[in-house]
Each structure stands twice: as C-alpha cells, then as structure tokens.
C-alpha cells in the first residue's frame, strides 16, 4: 500500500528527466498511473464489503509518534476510488484538452503529485501523516491553480487559495497535535478507543474549533469559501478534479473520519449544521446569479460541500449514509458538468451562459452528458441524484429535537437553487437555436467527450440500479463513520411519502425557476453590488489595512537615520538593564576588597579623562585624533600597572598604527561642523550618561561577585606541563585556543582584502560624475 501511495510522488519525479517524451501523442500514457491505482484499489472492494479493513504499518519517527500508518476501510476506499477513478478520466481528458501545451509534462507532474497526496490524506491513519499529505494537496493545488503562470489573476488566485487553506492547515495541525497529545497516540484508530476522554476534556472545544477551521478552509465553507471561485482560474480539468470532486472534499473527509473520535456532541453538531446550512444556502443562492459556467459550478460546488458538512453535523446514521451517497453523486455529476464546460470553453472560446445555446447540434455526445448530469443533479427519479436528494430529506426529517422543519426547509430551498444551477450548466448551452457563429464547430477528440459522458452515465446507472454501489461502497463508507452496521439498503422507490412530496416540490419549483428566469448580466451586476460585504472583500481589506499599518510602522521605526536607531536601542537597553539592576537589590561596594590607589594611577586616570573630554568636545579633527591616541596610550599604561605586559605591548603598537591610519586618511578632510542643535546635544548627553552610569553600576555589581577562577587555574597549571610554554597568555592564544586565533587572523585578512578592494577598485561610471 505504501508503494501505491508513493507511486504518484515517484512518477512526478520521473517527469523531470523524462517529461518531454510525454508531451506529444504519448501524453495518454500518463493516465496509466491513475488507471493502475484504480484497479489496485478496486481489488479491495470484496474485502471491504465483508467488513474487513486493511492496515499497514511502517515506523518513520516512532519517537515522535509519526509513523507510516495507513488504514483502508469503507470511507477510505470510497474516496480512493473517486480519486483514482475520476483521476483516470481527468488524465485522459487533459491529454486532449491541453494538447500541445508547452508545459504538459509539468501539468502531469503536479497532477500526479496531487493524486498521491490526496490518496495519502484519505488512507493515513496517523493524524500527523494525514496533516503532511493535507498540506501537500494545498501546495499542489497552488501550483495547479497558478498553472497559467503568465496570468496575474491566476497567480493571485493561487496565492489566495494557498493562503486560506494553508492558514487553516496551520490551525488544523495545532488541533491534531492537541488531540494526539491528550489521547496519547496519533493513530486515529487508537483515538477512537479513547474518544470518551477526549470529549470530556476541558480542551475539547478548542480542538473542535481548530479542526473545524482546518476543514472549513479546505472545503470552502462560509466564510472561507471565497478562494474556490478564484481557483476556477485553473484549467478546467483541474477544476473538475481538485476543486469539485476530490480536494475540496478533503475537509468533508476529515470531518467524516474524525466523527467517531470527536462527533456526536452538541459542540460538534450545531456548528456544523449552522455553518453547513449557511454555506449551502449562500452558495446555491449565489450560483443562480452567475453567468460564467464555471462560476455557476463553483458556487453550486460550495453549496454541495455545505450540504455534506450539514449532513455530517446532523450525525444520524441516515444522514451519514446520505453524506456518503451524496459525495459519490456530487462527484459524478459535478465532474461531468465541469468536463462538459471545459469542452464548450475549448471549442467556442466562451463560458458565458448567456451567449451559448443550441450546441447539441454540433456537440451531440456532450449534450447527452450534460443532460444526464443535469438530470442527476436535479434529482429526477431513476437518477442517482434522486437517491441522494431523497436521503438528504430523509435525514433532515428524521432529526429529533433540532427543528426538522427548519432544516428540511433549508434543504429544499437549497436544492431548488442547485437544480436551477445544474440545468443552467448542463442544459442551457445545448438547448435552443444554434447561433450562426458556432455552426462551424466540430466534435473534438473522443478523449474529451467520452469521460464526461461516462461519468454522467454512471450517475444514471447507479440511480437505476442502486445495488451496484450500495453494499460494495456506500454502506461500508457510512459504517466506517459510525462504527456500526447500517441496515438500510438504498432504494429507488420509497412509496408515496413526505420525502417524495418534497422531491416533487423541489423539482417543480426548480424547473419553474429555470423556465421563468434567464441568466443575465443584469443579475450578475445586482449580486455584485453586495461584494463589499462579502467575506472575500472584508478579508482583502483587512489584508490591505495590515499592509498599510506595516508600512507606516516601518517608516516610523526604520526611517534611515542611524543615530535614531541607535538612540532607541540604547534607551531600551538602559531601561532594561536598569530595571534588572535595581530590582535585584541594593548595590554596594565592599571597600576593603579594593586594591589601594597609587599616585601614578590617579595621574593616568586623570590624563585619560582629560583626553576623553578633548576627544568629545574638540572641533578640530586632528585634536580629536590625537586625544583618541592619548586614550589608547593611557590604556596601555593601565595594562602595564596591572600585570598585562602582552596587552600593553599590543595596545602600544596598535595605537601607533591607528594614529598613522587616521592621519593618512583624515588630514585632508575639513574640520568638524557642528550639526546638532543644543537640545539634541543635551538629549544625547543624557542618554549617553545614563548608559555609562548603568555600565558602571554593573561593573560594581560584578566586582562583588566572587571570581570563578577554575578555568584560569587550569590554564595556569597546564601551560607548561601540556604546552611547554611559560607565558600563559601566549599559550592560550597559540595553543589552547588556537582555533580562535586562526579565525582571528582570517578575519584580519578579510579586513585587509576589504580595504584593498575598496580603494583599488577604480571608480565605476556612476561614481565618476
């Protein structure tokens, strides 16, 4: 199983050296990967049907609890088959759709990467592993949305999608780690065993919040839905695959997968019902105002995702079964509609539904596909969509206590809008009179119309013969969610009851709406007036505000004046050090520990102070330089007094050289200008004095501490014994700490090279002015 998951990664790597061979006619070969994987997973159907689940274990970082743990059960299998099955068709379709595209190899590499990551998400049993794959899907989705990377809009949409899903993923990680930490294991199977503890824990609410936000961003739930319509900038096969059939369902999958761990409480149910409900209504309502075919499909997808979240939130066996069915139903008809749209776009060059009509005359097989998919999405009897819709109503009606009337009403209204959207996308372009300008269109390559047709036919077939998918796929999937067998086989005909009545109402109103209302630019303009209130715009303006704040903040702090930076740093350091110093108790000096003061020392210190005064206040450069060198020689004398002959010699020679240096460079420059006014000088003096005082106080404080001389003793004792030297300072430099000295001379060399190159390089053209 590990190989099956990693195959996509390996293949996407292989595209780097061998990709160019696949650009021509051989592009079809790329679909061998998903087809092979589909066969591989399909072979598990009998096992899963018998209630088995296949586990795979491979240690990775056992100390952190991260292992390659995979678990194939009903739910995983349903998703795996969707991913590889629709994947196969999309791979084939893209071979024709993007024929001759210069980056076809790149496209397939991203697509393989995505497929592998998505398989990883649905098969992983370890939550951290799941998270890694989860992020990989976001990243590959980023590449695929931005596939047309010469288009600024594409790039921006890709970035928005990555930002939203990545941000959610971040919170999800926190939630998953919290779960793993509390339950003591990162394995979902083991978490299920300890779910009572998790649900009772004080942090349960926080875990739910984090996991929900992660799932909502991925599955485009309100108010994070806005990235999905933008993601439609991707080539249509991508939209069909990632942003309708598979990736956006990862959030739904996560909720379904964690339902046994976290689900079933009020904290789980109500947020999901509310957010799912808002999303399904909001998405459906928006979809009817769009005129772009992909826009219609995008919003109806958002709505469908809302329905799924809603169903998982309700959490009854019926609703979970309904969710499993609806996942499959939606994947089939929505992918079919997307692929159909892709062909229309490809052939006519437009996706504007107001422009399109009568295409059945030139694109007949596609018209069939569109019609069947639209029927399935409309939920006509004998289509799979009918069963799906039925189950949704049944689920909402059978909720107890939580207002079945309201929920059912919500579902009905949503479904009416969705039906309208489905008809708009699947029927409208093909119905009516064929405009003159489209009469020359020919049916494209079979690879482009066969996949949507197949999907649409499957949607009808499962509807007419529900047993085809029921016991083998859907029931195990729902069983995996609630951990108990569900005994309610799917039926086409339930008899005359409330559910049928509701279906009839939905159908009638939806068709009526379709006949009564024509999509128009006017409607689009009307809905777009509300854009400033939409989450997308609110978040965008929030981003802009943060940006402006950052600019202003940077301008204030980072204003290009060195001394202002310094001033702030120093003031801050003074305050911090002073606080630490004075909160640590009284500062005192023990007089009898001090060494006596001699007349020479006083003289030297006096000279030093005078020289410092001169260096600071002098208006002549030369005086200042001379004063500086006097300070250096004074230091030298201090070193002589206090037993540091090496230091004294070094200081003396260096000082001499520094004077030479200053004189060489500076004696031609003009004298100082007094550039600061009185106020500034006083302020600077205050700050500088405060800093000096703090340093002095620290010095006093340290003098009170006993000196730890073990290291000095070690050097002293071993200088001769080990290093055969008697000048301990020198021994330290060349022997004990030889590496440091080595680096020091390297640094010196670099300084010399710097000086050399700064002066030797001739002035460049810009400097010659």
């Amino acid at each position, binding site marked *: 199983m590990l190989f099956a998951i990693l195959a996509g990664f390996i293949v996407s790597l292989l595209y780097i050296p061998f990709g160019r061979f696949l650009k021509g006619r051989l592009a079809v070969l790329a679909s061998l990967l998903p087809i092979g994987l589909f066969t591989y997973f399909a072979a598990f159907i009998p096992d899963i049907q018998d209630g088995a689940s296949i586990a795979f274990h491979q240690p990775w970082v056992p100390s952190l609890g991260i292992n390659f743990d995979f678990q194939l059960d009903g739910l995983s299998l349903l998703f795996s088959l969707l991913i590889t099955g629709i994947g196969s068709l999309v791979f084939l379709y893209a071979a024709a759709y993007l024929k001759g595209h210069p980056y076809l190899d790149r496209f397939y590499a991203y697509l393989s990467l995505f497929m592998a990551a998505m398989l990883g998400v649905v098969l992983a049993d370890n939550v951290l592993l799941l998270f890694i794959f989860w992020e990989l899907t976001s990243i590959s989705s980023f590449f695929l949305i931005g596939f047309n990377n010469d288009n600024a809009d594409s790039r921006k949409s890709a970035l928005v999608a990555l930002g939203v899903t990545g941000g959610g993923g971040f919170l999800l990680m926190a939630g998953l780690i919290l779960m793993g930490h509390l339950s003591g294991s990162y394995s979902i199977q083991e978490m299920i065993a300890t779910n009572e503890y998790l649900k009772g824990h004080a942090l349960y609410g926080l875990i739910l919040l984090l996991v929900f936000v992660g799932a909502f961003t991925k599955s485009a739930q309100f108010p994070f839905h806005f990235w999905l319509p933008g993601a439609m900038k991707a080539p249509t096969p991508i939209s069909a695959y990632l942003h309708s059939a598979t990736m956006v369902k990862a959030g739904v999958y996560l909720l379904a997968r964690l339902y046994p761990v976290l689900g079933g409480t009020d904290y789980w149910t109500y947020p999901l019902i509310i957010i799912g409900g808002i999303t399904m209504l909001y998405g459906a309502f928006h979809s009817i105002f769009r005129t772009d075919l992909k826009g219609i499909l995008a919003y109806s997808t958002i709505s469908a995702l809302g329905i799924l979240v809603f169903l998982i939130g309700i959490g009854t066996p019926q609703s979970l079964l309904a969710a499993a069915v609806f996942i499959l139903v939606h994947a089939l008809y929505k992918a079919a509609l997307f692929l159909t749209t892709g062909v229309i776009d490809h052939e006519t060059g437009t996706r504007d539904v107001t422009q399109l009509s009568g295409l059945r005359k030139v694109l007949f097989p596609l018209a069939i596909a569109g019609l069947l998919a639209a029927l399935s999405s409309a939920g006509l009897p004998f289509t799979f969509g009918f069963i799906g819709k039925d189950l949704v109503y049944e689920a909402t009606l059978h909720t107890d206590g939580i207002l079945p009337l309201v929920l059912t009403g919500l579902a009905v209204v949503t479904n009416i809008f969705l039906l309208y959207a489905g008809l708009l996308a699947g029927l409208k372009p093909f119905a009516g009179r064929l405009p003159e300008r489209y009469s020359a269109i020919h049916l494209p390559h079979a690879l482009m119309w066969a996949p949507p047709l197949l999907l649409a036919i499957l949607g009808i077939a499962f509807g007419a013969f529900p047993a085809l998918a029921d016991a083998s796929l859907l029931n195990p999937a729902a069983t995996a969610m609630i951990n108990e067998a569900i005994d309610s086989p799917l039926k086409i005909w339930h008899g005359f009851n409330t559910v049928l009545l509701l279906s009839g109402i939905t159908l009638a109103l939806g068709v009526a709406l379709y006949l009564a209302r024509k999509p128009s630019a006017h409607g689009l303009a009307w809905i777009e007036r509300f854009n400033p209130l939409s989450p997308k715009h609110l978040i965008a303006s929030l981003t802009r505000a943060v940006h402006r704040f950052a600019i202003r903040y940077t301008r204030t702090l980072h204003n290009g004046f060195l001394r202002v930076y310094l001033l702030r740093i120093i003031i801050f350091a003074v305050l911090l050090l002073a606080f630490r110093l004075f909160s640590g108790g009284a500062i005192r000096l023990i007089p009898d520990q001090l060494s006596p003061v001699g007349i020479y020392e006083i003289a030297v210190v006096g000279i030093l102070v005078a020289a410092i005064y001169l260096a600071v206040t002098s208006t002549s450069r030369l005086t200042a330089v001379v004063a500086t060198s006097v300070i250096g020689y004074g230091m030298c004398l201090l070193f002589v007094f206090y037993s540091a*002959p*090496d230091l004294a*010699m*070094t200081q003396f*020679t*260096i000082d*001499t*050289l520094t004077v*030479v*240096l200053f004189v*060489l*460079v500076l004696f*031609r420059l003009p004298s100082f200008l007094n550039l600061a006014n009185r106020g500034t000088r006083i302020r600077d003096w205050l700050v500088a004095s405060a800093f000096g005082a703090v340093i002095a106080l620290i010095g006093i404080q340290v003098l009170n501490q006993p000196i730890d001389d073990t290291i000095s003793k070690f050097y002293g004792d071993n200088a001769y014994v*080990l*290093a*055969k*030297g*008697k*000048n301990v*300072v*020198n*021994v330290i*430099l*060349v*022997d004990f700490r*030889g*590496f440091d*000295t*080595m680096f020091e*001379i*390297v640094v*010196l*060399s670099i*300084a*010399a*090279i710097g*000086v*050399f190159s700064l*002066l*030797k390089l001739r002035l460049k053209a810009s400097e010659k002015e």
Partner: protein
Amino acid sequence: MLPILLLFSLFILLRGHYYPGGGFVGGLIAAIAFVLHSFTNGTDDTLKLLRVHPSAFIPVGLGIAALSMFAPMLVGQPVMTGLWFNEPFPVIGLIGSALFFDIGVYIVVVGVVLTILFTISQYSE
C-alpha cells in the same frame, strides 16, 4: 632603524612562549618598522625593498598557521596537538608546532597591516 626593529620583532616573536611577546606583537612591531621606513623613504621605496606586495604575506602566513594546526594529524594525533622537538635550541628554547603557528600569525599581521596602510597611503597621494 629598519633592521634593528625587525630583529627586535623577531626576538619578541620567538620568546613569546616564555616571556611577554608573541606573534601579534612581533608582527605589529615589524609592520611599524616598515611603516617608518616608508615615512622616510616613500612608500614606493619600501615596496621595492619588500620585493613582493605585502598582500602576498597574508596567504603565506595563513598557510603556515593552518599547516601547523593540521601537522599533528600526519603523526596520527588530533588537530592542534602541540608537537615538540626534544632538544632545546639556544636562545629560543624548545621548538614546537605552536611556534610555527605563531610565526604564521606574525606573517599574517605584517601582511594585513602593511596592505592596509600602503593601500591607503598610495590612494591618498
């Protein structure tokens, strides 16, 4: 003046292990010797006297120091282990790898200081 100072700088260098002194100070003194020479005779004269540009000293010194660091590895000891000849030499005392390291430091310091100062003085002229 130049030869005396140079001799002195060598003396300081070699006795560094036993008395105050060493590569840094020795190198600085030698550098001062050359700087003084250049003050009296002009930088070009000093450069002529040196035959090679002082920047050439830097890699030589670095090389000697690095060699003395890695030399113990040739006899199978960790890097920077001091190696010593057994017999003491007159004036200098024992000779060991640390001395060569110090000589490397000396040469680098001379090279660096002279490079900097001569570059500047030539630029200023």
